């Protein structure tokens, strides 16, 4: 399968990117440092370890997805390796999907490695491994998949710097969805509110993948949200990749 082949070399290429290991190093540092921070805190120490650990995995995972993802398609075009590639009998969609899956695979490995360190630290502190932590990490990964799709979308038509900024903006907007919700509650009914409401439904709500707070504070997670969140992630990823293919198909490689 062409998609598999492209995913394979994308994984190989991403593996060689030093940024990946730099970010992994900082993530590991953050997770380990939480142990130290825990000493400074007043109150329940394990909470801060879990909090900082999950936050590290999340933040550095997002940075990995953005920094590598935004270069993926752009590099091929810039270095002209895309000419020989697209001259082969493959659909442009296959190219996009292959790149996407290659990076997702890379992130899976990195997230797994970071999670292992994290769980080891938690285990050293409490002697147990909570299932909730694994759930939180799994949904962090789902968020990374979505961010990867965004990065690839922007990479297919923009330079790495701009793409990174757009992807970062997407991430920030995704975590401020509650702000829009508050705004809608305070607006008076009318065209403005309808517009903001439409925006609210369409703009990403990345908090759907954020179970960190519940897991760390021991709050219950309503079961209905597990499936809804996964489907939401899948739909949004499909939408973004669809856009990427749409943009990429029409492109002329001069």
């Amino acid at each position, binding site marked *: 399968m*062409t998609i598999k082949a492209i995913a394979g070399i994308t994984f190989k290429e991403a593996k060689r990117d030093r940024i990946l290991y730099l970010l992994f190093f900082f993530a590991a540092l953050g997770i380990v440092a939480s142990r130290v921070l825990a000493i400074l805190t007043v109150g329940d120490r394990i909470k801060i370890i879990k909090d900082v650990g999950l936050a590290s995995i999340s933040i550095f995972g997002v940075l990995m997805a953005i920094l590598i993802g935004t270069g993926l398609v752009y590099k091929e075009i810039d270095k*002209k390796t895309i000419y*020989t590639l697209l001259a082969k009998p493959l659909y442009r969609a296959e190219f996009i999907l292959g790149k996407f899956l290659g990076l997702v695979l890379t992130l899976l490995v990195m997230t797994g490695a970071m999670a292992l360190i994290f769980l080891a630290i938690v285990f050293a502190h409490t002697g147990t491994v909570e299932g909730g932590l694994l759930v939180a990490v799994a949904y962090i990964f789902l968020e990374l998949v979505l961010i990867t799709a965004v990065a690839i979308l922007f990479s297919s038509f923009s330079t790495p710097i701009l793409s990174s900024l757009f992807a970062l903006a997407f991430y920030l907007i995704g975590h401020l969805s509650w702000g829009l919700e508050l705004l809608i509650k305070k607006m008076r009914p009318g065209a403005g509110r309808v517009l903001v409401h439409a925006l609210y439904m369409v703009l990403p709500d990345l908090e759907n993948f954020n179970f960190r707070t519940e897991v760390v504070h021991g709050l219950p997670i309503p079961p209905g949200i597990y499936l809804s969140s996964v489907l939401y992630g899948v739909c949004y990823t499909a939408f973004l990749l669809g856009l990427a293919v749409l943009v990429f198909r029409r492109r002329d490689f*001069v």
Partner: protein
Amino acid sequence: MADAIRIENLRKTFRLGFIPRPREILKGITFSVREGETFGYLGPNGAGKTTTIKCLLGLIHPDAGTIEILGRSASSPRSREPLGFLPENPYFYDYLTAREFLAFTADLFGLDRGVKRERIARLLELVGLGRAADLPLRKYSRGMLQRAGLAQALINDPKLVVLDEPLGGMDPLGRKEIRDIIVRFKDEGKTVFFTSHILQDIEMICDRVAIIVGGRIVKEGGLRDLVSEKVLFTEVTVSGISPQAFADLGECVSTRGDRVLLKVYDEALVEAVVSLVHDRKGRLVSLSPRTETLEDIFVDTVTRT
């Protein structure tokens, strides 16, 4: 015999720049390449050669016109299944070795394992990269990259090989090797379509040519048809006789020592020159008829357009 490539009324306009200014690059290209023939595509820089190739390969979407590869429309990726392409300045993934890169290319065609292995080994030998096969591509010289590029173009045993300036940047030995390989394609029944600036090479190996100038095909046809066997002039080098003796027979181009180089336009006058040399007891150093070359046609066509 089907057409390996059939292009009809191909048009493409680019809108470049922040405030798009349209530039019409291809103004209605029409030509065909028959199966089994070796076809040369010539033109000055900026005429639209590379754009034509990119339309053929689906890298650029034409505004109008038809492009068919072995009967299939070029807008479908499947049309490229029997096609192999070598770009002008090949760039490949520099962290892969030649072998890995060929394996990746083979995977794109879905070749199975046995075929893949055999073909990669054979191609590496063919292009002369047997020893360098496991070095990363970033360590390759320009010539080596060219060879690797040729190998990846042949991985699917294509019926049609498209080459963009395949002979540029290689030393004379390398150029001979590539020429020989291209001739081999012809023997194998492959169709070859390539662009080149080096007109001597085209003359040597092509069956048919097309000349594109300013986005239009201005000349198309068999090489033998375009390039007549007509003798333009004869160059005669003579020694031992002073130039004035030949004054009304030919043009004295240069003298060196006691050697005189003459350009004789009329074939009949050549006989007169030879007799003169014989009579005056001079020495005929060399005599070469200069026939019309492709270069002459090319320069003539381009300057005329």
